[in-house]
């Protein structure tokens, strides 16, 4: 099992009418890897993630997530993954504890287990004082940390993060990445999209998507060397400039 | 001024891009007009009558024939006396008319036989009306018998009713003005309150407020599309009413449209007022539904005559703008009166509109201050 990749994509494609949002992408993500999925706005990142998480049916190609086919075993896929969407995913009229217990409950955690886990989590996030506050009263950075913790509460093998640090200050972003590394160290595969190129440097491997295709794939060091640039940021600008869609 | 024009154009785009809402906004008046024109009648018609005839003589049969001939009644065959209760419970009949044994003989002998009329009085209106029909049918039968038998006609007063303004008693004539009021309330007040609250909820109101647009311009710009929509709706309803349903417009069309315009302004002011007091769409919607639309349907005289309501409700009805609007519109359309007959009601509407406008402008300013 250890050798089987966590995610396999082979020619995965999604068309909306005549528009090809994701154009035959292929890659593999190894278990325990932190995989950065980069691209300009509109490059097709979110569409790809939605296909891998079973929210959207692909129109072509194949993909397996945690060994399950995204066409035929959607529910099995869902049991093995966690997801934190670009849009806000917690209920702002429920408290921190209620949100944790709600999502944990949906994934079938037992009552005692749930109690213990939510207690641990609140303690680890250092939020004992806010455990019974409404989510809407908390600053964005805190909410994002809670949202991430909720996404991995049921101990999934893979977690998908769609721009988890958008709009968050640098210090909180740093803390957020500490959480990600902590999970990766436990063997969880992390699939993350981001706009921050400094974050890309934290990943084991990154891919850069332009106009629905993957234009570059490899570890940050390899990519920089291969394209003769100093940073992932330079590489990104170099590739994205060739694209026709998006505003980057 | 240029910024203002751009803003108004943006508002129009907003509405015209939301196809579903647009279809409903234009479709609703038409469908409701059709329903009121073709389907809904508040007069009692085709009431099922069970006749239990223990006499089976020519008198009882003659009266049954008369009942059958009435366009208001429909005789259901085959219901016996013991079946009446079950028939009522299952809604198979609403009235049972029972003729006693030896009905005709007793009548001739002058022994005053009794016809029993049992009504399903759960609906008192139907019960009363049907009783009146049956009484009338029996009455005319008696007069006829007496006349043909050559006996002395009893001296009596005969009532000759004339139905003024709506001789055929068509419900649609009554409903059209109410429908105009309802649609205008819906489009102007409800839509306006929701659209402004929505802007607050999403947070775009702040952006508008820091723009060079003045608060007054923002509000006018927001309500402009609804003003246009409502005018289109009024014209649609009036055209349908007069062309398809032959509802008369006896008074001045200019006056009619002017009064509609006044009511539109009144409703818009109400909508703005609500939006200054609420912060979420759900609340704005519930307040508009319960505070505006319901009273417009119930307390305005749209369906139920205000005069029949208990005193407290009649007092409440005075603050429902639609009540005054209905008196005005019915006066102009159906009775053909001019301003001399409805100036008081018009003044009340003008007064209400002023109050709502002032209140909403103040509400808006207060919000800006803090």
């Amino acid at each position: 099992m250890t050798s089987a990749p966590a995610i396999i994509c082979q020619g995965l494609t999604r068309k909306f009418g005549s528009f090809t949002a994701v154009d035959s992408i292929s890659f593999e993500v190894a278990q325990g890897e932190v995989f950065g999925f980069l691209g300009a706005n509109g490059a097709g990142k979110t569409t790809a993630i939605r296909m891998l998480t079973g929210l959207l049916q692909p129109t072509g190609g194949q993909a397996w997530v945690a060994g399950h086919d995204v066409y035929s075993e959607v529910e099995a896929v869902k049991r093995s993954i966690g997801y934190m969407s670009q849009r806000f995913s917690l209920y702002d009229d429920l408290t921190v504890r209620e949100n944790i217990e709600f999502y944990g409950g949906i994934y079938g955690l037992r009552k005692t287990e749930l109690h213990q886990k939510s207690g641990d989590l609140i303690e680890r996030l250092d939020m004992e004082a806010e455990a019974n506050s409404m989510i809407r009263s908390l600053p964005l950075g805190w909410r994002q940390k809670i949202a991430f913790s909720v996404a991995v509460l049921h101990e999934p093998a893979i977690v998908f993060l769609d721009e988890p640090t958008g709009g968050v200050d640098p210090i909180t972003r740093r803390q957020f990445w500490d959480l990600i590394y902590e999970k990766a160290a436990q063997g969880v595969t992390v699939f993350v999209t981001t706009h921050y190129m400094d974050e890309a440097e934290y990943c084991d491997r990154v891919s850069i998507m332009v106009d629905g295709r993957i234009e570059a794939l490899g570890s940050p060091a390899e990519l920089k060397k291969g394209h003769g640039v100093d940073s992932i940021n330079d590489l990104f600008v170099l590739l994205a400039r060739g694209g026709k869609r998006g505003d980057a | 001024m240029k910024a203002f024009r751009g803003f108004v154009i943006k508002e129009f785009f907003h509405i015209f891009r939301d196809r579903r809402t647009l279809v409903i906004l234009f479709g609703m008046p038409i469908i409701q007009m059709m329903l009121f024109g073709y389907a809904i009648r508040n007069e009692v018609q085709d009431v099922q009558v069970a006749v239990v005839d223990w006499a089976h003589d020519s008198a009882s049969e003659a009266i049954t024939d008369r009942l059958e001939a009435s366009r208001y009644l429909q005789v259901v065959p085959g219901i016996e006396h013991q079946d009446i209760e079950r028939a009522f419970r299952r809604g198979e009949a609403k009235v049972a008319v029972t003729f006693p044994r030896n009905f005709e003989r007793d009548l001739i002998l002058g022994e005053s036989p009794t016809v029993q009329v049992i009504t399903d009085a759960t609906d008192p209106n139907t019960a009363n009306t049907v009783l009146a029909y049956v009484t009338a049918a029996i009455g005319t039968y008696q007069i006829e018998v007496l006349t043909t038998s050559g006996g002395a006609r009893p001296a009596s007063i005969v009532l000759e009713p004339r139905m003024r303004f709506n001789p055929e008693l068509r419900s649609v004539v009554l409903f059209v003005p109410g429908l105009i009021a309802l649609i205008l309330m819906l489009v102007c007040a409800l839509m306006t309150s929701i659209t402004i609250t929505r802007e607050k909820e999403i947070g775009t109101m702040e952006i508008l407020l820091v723009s060079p647009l003045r608060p007054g311009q923002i509000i006018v710009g927001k309500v402009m599309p609804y003003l246009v929509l409502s005018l289109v709706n009024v014209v649609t309803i009036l055209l349908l009413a007069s062309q398809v349903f032959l509802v008369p417009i006896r008074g001045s069309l200019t006056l009619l449209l002017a009064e509609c315009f006044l009511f539109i302004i009144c409703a818009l002011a109400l909508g703005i007022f609500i939006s200054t007091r609420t912060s979420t769409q759900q609340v704005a919607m519930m307040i508009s539904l319960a505070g505006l639309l319901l009273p417009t349907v119930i307390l305005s005289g749209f369906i139920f005559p205000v005069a029949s309501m208990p005193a407290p409700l009649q007092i409440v009805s005075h603050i429902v703008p639609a009540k005054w609007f209905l008196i005005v519109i019915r006066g102009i359309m159906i009775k053909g009166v001019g301003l001399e007959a409805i100036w008081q009601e018009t003044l009340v509407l003008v007064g209400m509109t002023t109050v709502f406008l002032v209140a909403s402008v103040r509400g808006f300013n207060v919000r800006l201050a803090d």
Partner: protein
Amino acid sequence: MRIIAIILRKEFRQIFRNRAMLPILFVLPVIQLLVLSYAATFEVRETPLVVIDQDRSETSRALIARLDASLYFQIGEQTTSMEEAERALLFGEVDMVMTIPSGLERDLGAGQPVIVQVVLDAEDGATAGIVQSYATQIINQVNADISLGPPGIRIAPSHWYNPNLEYTTFMVPGILVLLVTIIGTFLSAMNVVREKEIGTIEQLNVTPIKRYQFVVAKLLPFWIIGMAELGVGLVIAKIVFSVPMVGSLWLVFALAGLYLLVMLGLGLWISTLTDTQQQAMFVAWFLMVIFILLSGLFTPIDSMPRWAQIVTEFNPIAHFIEIMRRILLKGAGFQDVTRQTAALAIQAVLMLTLAVRQYQKRTG
């Protein structure tokens, strides 16, 4: 089951935490019930009228006294001028003008019929008809007083189920239906679309929740609230309006449960179909207005044309109003409402199937 319980707990928390919604849920329906029940009446009392008495005899005065004494009429000023009377009618000061011709007493004495003309403001045709029937009743009484001939056929009316012809008795059961319906349908219509607008629906969709669990958990809170409101409404109906409750209340609640499934299914279907709360509300409002207008609540279904009566077969509100009136007022048992129950059952299955099918965790 556990997953459903977890979603349920969350839904209830959210409902009861929204301060603005609580009064809407529990106070508004009560006010509606009270106002609607008192306002919705076709009973006509104290119709203002003007009498033009051209006879000025004992008989004509007796007739006027009779009118004045009845609860149905209220005589304003008397006038001899037809023009003045017409003006009063036009300006809406009176609803009826009665003209008693000169020679009334003389002609009656001579055994000749006399025509008394009444002109009614028939803007509201139904009311005009009712006023006319009251006038006829009074004239008949006067006729009986002055008649010398043999007594003819006697009519013995008996009004079953509602002997005092109370309008509220008739309206309250129907209005109860309306309350339960409005709350249930509107709230369920807004519910899922709200999660769409906020974005939390995505998060739910990547969880292994089953579709039926989601739908059940979304419907159940409003089902429970609807049943609770019906209970409160029935208590008010009994205490305030003294509505007779002849039939089985168990049957009422059982069928209400079935009916709520139809309306909640409809609300949920609307919710899954639309993108914003505003849209959801409009679609719900639009359907609701049509259903209510064609439900027989305010105007009799019997008076509708054939085609509209057939359309009514597809109207759940009409069926449930009929059920409520029959059970509560007439004491109907299950066997008396099987047709309506069957219709509701079919509609419930249909609506829920539609709602579950329309709710897709994955977009194709």
